[in-house]
């Protein structure tokens, strides 16, 4: 099952890379044959490490929430950039950095990965490490609270609800 989903994914990526393809046109069958062979190889080599629960790939509601998530994420990303721009262009450099500890209630590995990546790309925060109990260590360019609960609410709260719907 894992191998099959990885095979389909790599086959799609292959066709996007070899994009202008027409049925019957030049190199059509060669494209399919080479892509299929490479996708099979990839699926057999890396199928084991792909994802823990492959059946989730076919759940439609996740994709709906993912579509809702993209604009939110993009909005925070642009805000983040102007925030960092302001701090680095200001002559006095108003930064107040530190590493804080926050807690997340997400359980799945892919969910935590997505959360860490979102945190890194959004306002003034950079994930440094995480431990097994769901605590994240986050470098914050402007520390507003050193308390675990409050920092979690500010940093993680923005994304956690919607990521839960996508990945759990």
């Amino acid at each position, binding site marked *: 099952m894992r191998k099959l989903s990885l095979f389909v994914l790599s086959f799609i990526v292959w066709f996007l890379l070899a994009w202008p393809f027409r049925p019957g046109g030049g190199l059509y069958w060669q494209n399919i044959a080479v892509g299929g062979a490479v996708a099979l190889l990839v699926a057999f080599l890396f199928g084991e490490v792909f994802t823990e629960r492959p059946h989730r790939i076919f759940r439609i509601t996740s994709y709906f929430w993912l579509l809702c998530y993209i604009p939110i994420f993009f909005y925070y*990303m642009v805000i983040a950039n102007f925030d960092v721009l302001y701090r680095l262009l200001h002559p006095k450099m108003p930064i107040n950095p530190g590493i804080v500890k926050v807690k997340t209630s997400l359980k799945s590995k892919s969910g935590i990965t997505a959360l*860490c990546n979102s945190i*890194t*790309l959004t306002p003034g925060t950079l*994930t*440094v490490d995480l431990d097994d109990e769901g605590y994240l260590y986050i470098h914050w360019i402007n520390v507003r609270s*050193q308390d675990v609960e409050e920092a979690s609410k500010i940093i993680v709260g923005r994304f956690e609800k919607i990521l839960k719907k996508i990945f759990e």
Partner: protein
Amino acid sequence: MADTVGIVVITVGIAFDLFGCVGLVRFPDIYNRLQAATKCVTLGTCFILLGVLLVSGISSTGVKAILCLIFILLTSPTAAHALARGAHLFGLKLWEQSVCDKYEEEKRERR
């Protein structure tokens, strides 16, 4: 029309990349520098690729630009985690005026 918009978007992207590099020079320690480097450079590169997509349309180049965009959004923050964690485990200190370092306390407790 799409050409003009595309070139404007590429220009904005290059500006973000430039400011990311300014941040790399100005900020005091590795963690703050990584903040500037990941955020500004990721968004800047995304804008450049979006501009390429707008200029070239859904063609061979445009589709590759979308693929690159997705890969950059996935890999750039991951590289930043790896660098920040590696630096901290190696023992690089935060800037003197930093407020707190919960990670350092945690590491001491574990020892």
